[in-house]
């Protein structure tokens, strides 16, 4: 305030040194660039129209905004003219009012944002009903011309959204699992981070407990048949809601990790390939066999050029053999890994999910039944493994060749080389990418709703079908969007922190 007061005094006294020339300002900014002047004119017109609309609809708020804008703009302009700013006007001059265009656009945006925020708060809070009794909720909402949100549907269905149909008397098992995970997660950064704990028994115990976690969680969440303490649950029926989402995401990432590492190593495999004579020989034999058995009869049957051309398909075997030699040097491991990765990355996840539900049973021995949940978990694992393999391959490529050569010079065998030197560096480099992968997987679990497993999105869909809460469409989606947003936001911030920590001083 003092600066503004002094600025005003200077202006009124005429004592400010005149580095600011009005004529020059107008000449520079308007006459010299007629296009800019036209643009500003158009922008001013639009801003005036929008401001007038808002003034008619919501006079008080708009008047306050206009007043605040005019005052802050005036203070900033004064500061600019006299080259004397307070910290506030300096920030405004740099960020909001740095040019005439910016000043007008700021006004427009503030008006629109405030209108949007008011609309949302109106819907979500002012006109909303928080009662879990459908009749009371209907009465509350009927008072408004455009009814607000019906949060009672969410509050009433909170347990459904979290664990859906998990048996009530077994809910303690979920709490025990959460307690176990929390108990292990809290000491982990300290025990694994500090050098003091290296080789200490505490660290070894913690590692063993972590390794036991899959077994413990299986026992608690699935149980044993015939057991009195942890009776067997049916994942297809009993798992649902956020519980199922987290299980799919966590199992997906954990199980896809070893598979992803194997695929990445396989794709970069440098094993000497099958000898050329073997490949060409096998290709020749197969081509001749199929030419005789299928092409010759087909050429006799079909008419038309297209049909005859299609009948010559065995020649593609020779083409495949040549490509195999050329691109993979005859290395079968690299070939199969690449085919797997490229095929799985090229098709949508939903096709793989449906494939697992419909086709996997055909590939299993007749009579063997696998639960839908296990099939979906397998599909998610196979899908995530392909993407993870590409991330890890990036990490492997980032390691300088000198590391490989030094390991070879030291006489390390290949397994030792990878275990002690290559993989630790590669995995450390791709941890941020893996966290990003986990975020993507967490979001992709929603696709499972289309395959008839009720995770969080599936439950949200069911809410609007309940007779008590018919027609409540938006609120469930807004609520689960909030859950996903909070979860992903924190994971993304953690990943950014991790990136910064790993990038600094480690290399």
């Amino acid at each position, binding site marked *: 305030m003092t600066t503004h007061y002094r600025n005003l005094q200077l202006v009124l006294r005429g004592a400010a040194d005149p580095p600011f020339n009005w004529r020059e300002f107008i000449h520079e900014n308007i006459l010299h660039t007629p296009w800019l002047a036209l643009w500003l004119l158009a922008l001013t017109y639009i801003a005036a129209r929008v401001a007038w609309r808002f003034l008619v609809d919501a006079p008080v708020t708009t008047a306050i905004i206009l007043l605040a804008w005019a005052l802050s703009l005036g203070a900033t302009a004064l500061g600019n003219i006299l080259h004397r700013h307070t910290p506030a006007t300096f920030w405004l001059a740099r960020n909001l009012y740095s040019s005439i265009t910016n000043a007008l656009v700021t006004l427009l*945006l*503030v008006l629109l944002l405030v209108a949007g925020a008011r609309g949302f708060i109106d819907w979500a809070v002012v006109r909303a009903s928080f009662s879990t009794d459908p009749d009371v909720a209907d009465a509350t909402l009927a008072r408004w011309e455009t009814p607000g949100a019906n949060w009672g549907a969410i509050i009433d269905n909170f347990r459904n959204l979290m664990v859906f149909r998990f048996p009530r008397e077994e809910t303690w098992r979920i709490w025990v699992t959460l307690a176990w995970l929390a108990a292990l997660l809290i000491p982990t950064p300290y025990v694994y981070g500090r050098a003091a704990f290296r080789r200490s028994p505490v660290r070894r115990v913690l590692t063993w407990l972590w390794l036991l976690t899959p077994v413990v969680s299986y026992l608690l969440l699935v149980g044993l048949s015939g057991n009195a303490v942890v009776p067997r649950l049916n994942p297809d029926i009993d798992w649902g809601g956020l519980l199922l989402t987290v299980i799919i995401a966590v199992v997906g990432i954990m199980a896809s990790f070893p598979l992803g590492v194997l695929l990445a190593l396989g794709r970069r495999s440098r094993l000497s390939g099958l000898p050329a004579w073997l490949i060409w020989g096998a290709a020749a034999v197969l081509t001749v066999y199929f030419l005789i058995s299928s092409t010759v009869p087909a050429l006799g049957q079909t008419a038309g050029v297209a049909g005859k051309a299609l009948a010559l398909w065995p020649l593609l075997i020779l083409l495949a053999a040549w490509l195999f030699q050329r691109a993979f040097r005859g290395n079968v491991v690299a070939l199969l890994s690449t085919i797997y990765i490229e095929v799985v990355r090229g098709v949508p996840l939903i096709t793989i999910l449906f*494939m697992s539900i*419909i086709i996997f049973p055909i590939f299993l021995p007749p009579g063997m039944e696998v639960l839908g949940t296990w099939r979906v978990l397998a599909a998610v694992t196979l899908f995530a493994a392909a993407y993870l393999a590409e991330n890890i391959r990036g990490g492997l490529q980032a390691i300088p060749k000198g590391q490989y050569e030094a390991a070879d010079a030291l006489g390390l065998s290949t397994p030792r080389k990878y275990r002690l030197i290559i993989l630790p560096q590669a995995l450390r480099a791709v941890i941020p990418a893996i966290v990003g992968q986990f975020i993507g997987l967490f979001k992709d679990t929603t696709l499972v709703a289309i395959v008839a497993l009720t995770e969080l999105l599936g439950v949200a869909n069911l809410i*609007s079908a309940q007779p008590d809460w018919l027609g409540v469409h938006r609120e469930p989606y807004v609520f689960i969007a909030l859950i996903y947003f909070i979860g*992903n936001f924190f994971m993304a911030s953690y990943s950014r922190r991790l990136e910064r920590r790993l990038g600094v001083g480690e290399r």
Partner: protein
Amino acid sequence: MTDLAPKTTRRAAETPFWRDARVLGVLAQAVFLAVVVAAAAWIGSNASQNMLRLGGSQFLCRDGTTSFRCAFDFLRLDAQFAISESLIPYDPSDSYARALAVGALNTAKVAVLGIVLATVLGTVTGIARLSSNWLISTVARWYVDLIRNTPLLVQLFFLFFGVIVLFPPIRAALQPFGLPIYLSQRGINLPRPVVMPSFGTWLIFLVAGVGLAAVAWFLLGRREVRTGQAINRPLWAALAFAVVAVGGWFVAAAGGANNQGFLVSDSAGISVLDDLATTTAVRLGLVDLDELPGALASGALTEDEVEQGTLIFCGVKDAPAEANLTAQLRRAGVPFAFERFPGPNEAIGGYVDGDCEALVAPRAVLMAASIPASTIVPVPETPLRFSLPRIEGLNFVGGIKLSPNFAAILIGLVLYTGAFIAEIVRAGIQSVPRGQSEAARALGLSEAQRLRLVVLPQALRVIIPPLTSQYLNLTKNSSLAIAVGFPDLWSVAYTTLNQSGRALQVFLLVMATYLAFSLIISFFLNWYNRRIALVER
């Protein structure tokens, strides 16, 4: 002298057979291959056993036998299910193959439109993220963070079940900002440009305009070099093009003045277009049609009375003649009604039968119809007319109609992928060192030149590879259209699968098609990537 070297040294230096890296490598691969082949054989035997138990209908041939060769013969059978939207004509008696082709074309439509719109949105947002205005960059950041952190399927469901399905019914359709865009339960209706016969003439002028602009560009460039003064070449070239284009518009319109018209009987007393306005005003009991909006507002005339009083036109459905006439009458403020027929002969028949009072068609058709005692009133034509959506009865006519399902999947995909592209563009632009911009400014380049010549080429190299994967993600995410009821490839394939029971074959076809889409997109983008790559040693 080599013959003095002892022979034993060479044999001792050779590694034994079982430790030779090459042999071990081949052995490892042979074992790996054996394991893979054994697993495949096990799966294959399970599959064939399960197929046999299903009755072997999966591989039924046309002649009744069962063979692996007939795996895809089911594609010739009748599909027997309807598809709600299609780019090519389709009805349920077409084959499964045609149904799948319809699905693939729908996916291509969503993919192409989605990629174009998402790139535009993403680029604008990415640049907004770097704006000096704190509000703009913060709003862009919130949009990107919100969209990237929520699952696409949740956004799609919210868009479809929470927004589009809840749009008002047709009669109360929303019009954002007063534009002729209608949002209703039936979807989104947008105006559509319609090409009239005189468009060909205008096209010649447009090409000439481009040529003139190119000549101006070249000559002004020479002048710049000669005099050393900067000349605003884009401005002059655009001006040259605009002059020729606008002049060509009027010339083409004048040339096509006699192309369109409508036929009325002599007794109606209409010989020029203005007579139509007068006649309609008289029929409605007004002095002048300018009074119509006032009369409607004050209640002196009801909408039904207006409908009764307007002239009814016969015309061919979706023909340019209709768009031309409606645009002209809209400008004159004359209300009208339309009877639509499938073809010109039916329209003429309808007029003769008395279904309507006037016949709209190209002048040549009207003259050829040679209906006695009738006048042909000429209607002016312009090369392009805009067909605006209009409510007639229970439907919108005219303009482009986006079904609610298509609108949901397109908008959802564009918003989602646009957020990811925004981050990629931002990272690309920020990857260009600041020194480059400072050097450009020091050299006296304008802001536009700095962006075009210095920043963008370097930024593009960083942007294109992740952009490729985003385009591929968009194409794959379009398979979620099944959740909002749009018949894309996956949705049609799933119906085919359930209907025909051939799960394996349908899956193979679908996966092959998606792989083909992915390959095409990556091929084009890799080619572009190579073109803009740095030329290095």
